């Protein structure tokens, strides 16, 4: 279990994202209709956006605290971030992308990681030749292998084909448990939120509309 303490306000042009959650969970699911609010929340945790005020702490590690003028640099936050636009380094091949993060510490065995995310046949390919789903799996491997203290995944399976998605989710959760790294997971699919997250936040209009166990929070249709 990890302690998530995310209490911040983020200004984005006209739009304000007000985020306030303090919860113990292994994986926090951010769920809601598409919009930029969920991605902005992840970017705030990664340090790529600076909140107007508030605190961001994961597992007792304070990454941002406006009252104490504390703003940990992006580099030192130790986040494993998979953005929705994936952003594999285009000049490096798959292997070079996966091993880019050089941090010491909590990282999985490369061979096991490659096996679990079904990347073996791709390792020597140029990233330009990969499909969307393949790129997402490489981005997840890159984030996991960087020795992160918290994983930030933004719709990481959106382009992964359905039969494979189930297996990748299981693999992902397996690695996550093995490393015991907390995860913040953005998705717009209820079933994915139910499988991955043990605490869900329903984001609506830049606010947390509901917060609780995924089964209680997910809209039942």
């Amino acid at each position, binding site marked *: 279990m990890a302690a998530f303490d995310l209490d911040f306000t983020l200004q984005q042009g006209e739009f304000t994202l007000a985020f306030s959650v303090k919860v113990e969970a292994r994986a926090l699911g951010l769920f809601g209709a598409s919009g930029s609010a969920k991605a902005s929340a992840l970017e705030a945790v990664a340090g*790529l956006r600076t909140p107007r005020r508030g605190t961001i702490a994961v597992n007792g590690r304070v990454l941002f605290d406006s009252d104490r003028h504390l703003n940990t640099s992006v*580099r030192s936050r130790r986040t494993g*971030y998979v953005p929705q636009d994936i952003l594999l380094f285009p*000049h490096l091949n798959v292997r070079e992308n996966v091993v880019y993060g050089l941090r010491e510490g909590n990282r999985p065995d490369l061979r096991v990681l490659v096996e679990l995310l079904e990347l073996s046949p791709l390792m020597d390919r140029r990233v330009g030749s990969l499909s969307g789903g393949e790129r997402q799996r490489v981005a997840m491997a890159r984030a996991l292998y960087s020795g992160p203290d918290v994983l930030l995944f933004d719709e990481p399976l959106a382009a992964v084909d359905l039969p494979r998605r189930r297996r990748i989710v299981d693999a992902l959760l397996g690695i996550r448990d093995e490393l015991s790294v907390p995860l913040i997971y953005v998705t717009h699919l209820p079933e994915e939120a139910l499988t991955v997250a043990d605490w869900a936040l329903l984001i609506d209009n830049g606010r947390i509309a509901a917060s609780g166990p995924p089964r209680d929070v997910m809209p039942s249709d």
Partner: protein
Amino acid sequence: MSAEIRDIAIFTTLAALAATAVMLVPGVAVAWLLARRQFPGKSIVETLVSLPLVMPPVATGLMLLWLFSRRGPIGGLLARLGIDIVFTPAAVVIAMAVMGLPLLVRTARAGFEQVTRRYEQIAETLGAGPWRVFSTVTLPLAARNILAGATLGFSRALGEFGATIVVAGSIPGRTRTLAVGIYSFTENGQDRQAAMLLAISVSIAFVAVLASNRLAKEA
């Protein structure tokens, strides 16, 4: 081709290559600063770097002559170390580098500006420090533009005349370059030699610009 013509062609090419090497590190550094950083006096730096493009090259040469002569601020320092610059091959290289630099900086800057900031941010999230981000992400992604800029700077250096003749003169076998040679031979009525240098200039410049355009297109 006479030995004299051949030596001028070789000397000019080597001097232009040396000038390109000299301008590369400061040129790339300035291009990166202009593309990625806000700092006081940025527009002054931008203007200074572009100045040799629009100033009469002879005027640039005169400025260099003043800077590097024994009574000048840089030349004076070097003279104390026993180093003379003016009217030496080193003066040729300096004149070429100063005249080629604006082209390198402009092209490389455009290259840096094309590199999506998000790639650099992702590298940071993966724990890369500023130097690692620059050397493993920014620089490789801008490499084609930098190469195109260096080729352009090299081409400019090859054809440099005005600044060179002021600061290095036209000493046969020592500082005479293709462009200066064409002028000197023409003035002396040695049209055959001038025509040969002309043909060599055209061929080298043609290949260099072709290469630069290819690189810029692929970038």
